[in-house]
């Protein structure tokens, strides 16, 4: 499209937009290397990894208390893992069901999608009230867990729905009618076709649950998850150890993203090789 200055102007605007998106994280990353005496702002007194040591409990005692990351990290990882398993299973089953036309598919679709739309603070309040009413104690592995699934299951469902929409049912039927057992058909035909979707649904579920905060706030009970532990430090003065934590948790999320990318790439290249063999 030839429209003179509009294209470079919009390109510049998009670049500024990316700066707006990434700027605060970049500043936060720089400030995480503040020295012990420096505050959570510029100027950097002296470059150091003191706050990383402080975060990991390697620094000598200081007036700033250590962030409670140890146990809460393990809880968050376990919760994210549980959530991933259940929501990917539910998502795949529901998407498979949607391949058949049935009455009431519209309301069911919206019921599932509602899970990712309804504000966390509302369902969190609801589950807390319900557990009070029924006299059930609240804990990260029970009340928080069911809510995390309510949130991530719709994402898994949508991803799997997109995958199932793309592939033709007759491929499976061909395999079955050629006498391949259902188990073999699933392993050799269905699974390779849906694997990229399963992987994406897992990535979504895990990261969303790992970072989820508003759904956990009222439902976790006494034992905190990682985001709750971080939120607890917000109300008091913040120190650069929160920044160091931010850098590390961001790196963790990126690592997951890279693993996902590598698995995806390996999988697609293997599929290509397989297709090539068939051609020969």
């Amino acid at each position, binding site marked *: *499209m030839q*429209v003179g200055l509009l*294209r470079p102007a*919009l390109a510049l*605007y*998009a670049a500024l*937009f*990316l700066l707006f*998106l990434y*700027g*605060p*994280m970049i*500043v*936060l990353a720089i*400030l995480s290397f503040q020295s012990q005496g420096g*505050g959570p*702002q*510029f100027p950097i007194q002296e470059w150091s990894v003191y706050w990383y040591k402080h975060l990991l409990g390697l620094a000598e005692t200081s007036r700033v208390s250590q962030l409670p990351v140890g146990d809460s990290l393990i809880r968050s990882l376990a919760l994210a893992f549980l959530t991933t398993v259940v929501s990917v299973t*539910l*998502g795949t089953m*529901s998407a*498979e*069901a949607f391949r*058949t036309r*049935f009455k009431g598919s519209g309301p069911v679709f919206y*019921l*599932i*999608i*509602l*899970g990712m*739309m*309804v*504000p966390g*603070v*509302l*369902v969190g*309040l*609801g589950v*807390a*009230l*319900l557990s*009070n*009413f029924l006299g059930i104690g609240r804990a990260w592995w029970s009340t928080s867990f*069911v809510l995390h699934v*309510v949130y991530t*299951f719709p994402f898994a469902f949508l991803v799997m729905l997109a995958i199932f929409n793309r592939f033709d049912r007759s491929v499976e039927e061909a395999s079955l009618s050629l006498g391949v057992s259902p188990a073999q058909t699933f392993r050799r035909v269905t699974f390779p076709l849906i694997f990229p979707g399963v992987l994406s649904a897992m990535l979504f579920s895990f990261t969303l649950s790992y*970072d989820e905060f*508003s759904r956990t706030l*009222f439902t976790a009970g006494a034992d905190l998850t990682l985001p709750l532990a*971080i*939120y607890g430090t*917000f*109300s008091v003065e913040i120190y650069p150890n*929160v920044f160091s934590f*931010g850098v590390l*948790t*961001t790196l963790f*999320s990126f690592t*997951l*993203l890279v693993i996902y990318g590598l698995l995806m790439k390996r999988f697609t290249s293997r599929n290509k090789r397989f297709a090539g063999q068939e051609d020969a």
Partner: protein
Amino acid sequence: MTTMTNDIPVKSGASPAATRAAKDRRRALLLLSPGVLWMLLFMLLPLGMVVYVSFWTQTTFAVEPTLTTASWERFMSSPTYLSAIGTTLRIWLIVLLSTLFVGYPVALFIGLFVKNRTLQTALLVACVIPFWTSFLIRVIAWRPMLGTEGAINIILMKLGIISEPLSFLLFSEFSVIVGMTQIYCVFMVGPITFMIARIDESVIEAARDLGASFGTIFRRIVLPLSLPGVIVGTIFVSVMVLGEFATAASLSGRKVNLLGNIIVSQVGSLKWAFAAVAGVVLTIIITAVITLALRVVDIRKEM
């Protein structure tokens, strides 16, 4: 061929196709029931509980299941709570407009001006990546940006634009709006880019060959075709901003009280019934917004 048709057993008059369709439907319902049950038990039932408890009797430290409208009367006659409704609606509208105006040109650039598919995907991924990082960390990252000794004030002072640090940048409504715009903008950019990238190139070329200026092409083709994306983005941003409390809690210095903040503080002081009333009010507002938006576009058709 005739012998083969005769071989198919005919059961109670139903055709084989109908039997199979019925079997498929049963299988679909079986596959669907765990997910639907989960949503009913852990989403709809709790939401119903919020409505129910909003009519309970609030005592000092507990709620009792004696039905009353006292909490509602107190909520509706309290200037603090009523102004929270006003603040929530104001912040929602401002953030909605700012995500739209900040995001639309970016979506236009990625969807219309970037022709290379790889670059298009790369730019979209670059916009989505911050979504993968911790929400709370992204909120807190605005503190060293906007503070009186923050990055923006330092840069502006170094450039000689201001001589005194701007104090309205942090712990104000401004910081809440900036923070929310940055966090939720991607949900506007994504759907709009998706719709714009789907526009058939030949339609635009035809318009240009017929002598239409870019302004006309934008107004008559691109803008109307991108509207479903705008609506989907509006729904995403609206439900997220209306249910917000963490950004306001950590960037406004307690100056901005949204309905979400009311719920959190009421739960903190064990005033469950008042929290429930605020929750019901919030639900009503969100339902109204989504219903209004869904009148304009059918999401299921657009996906």
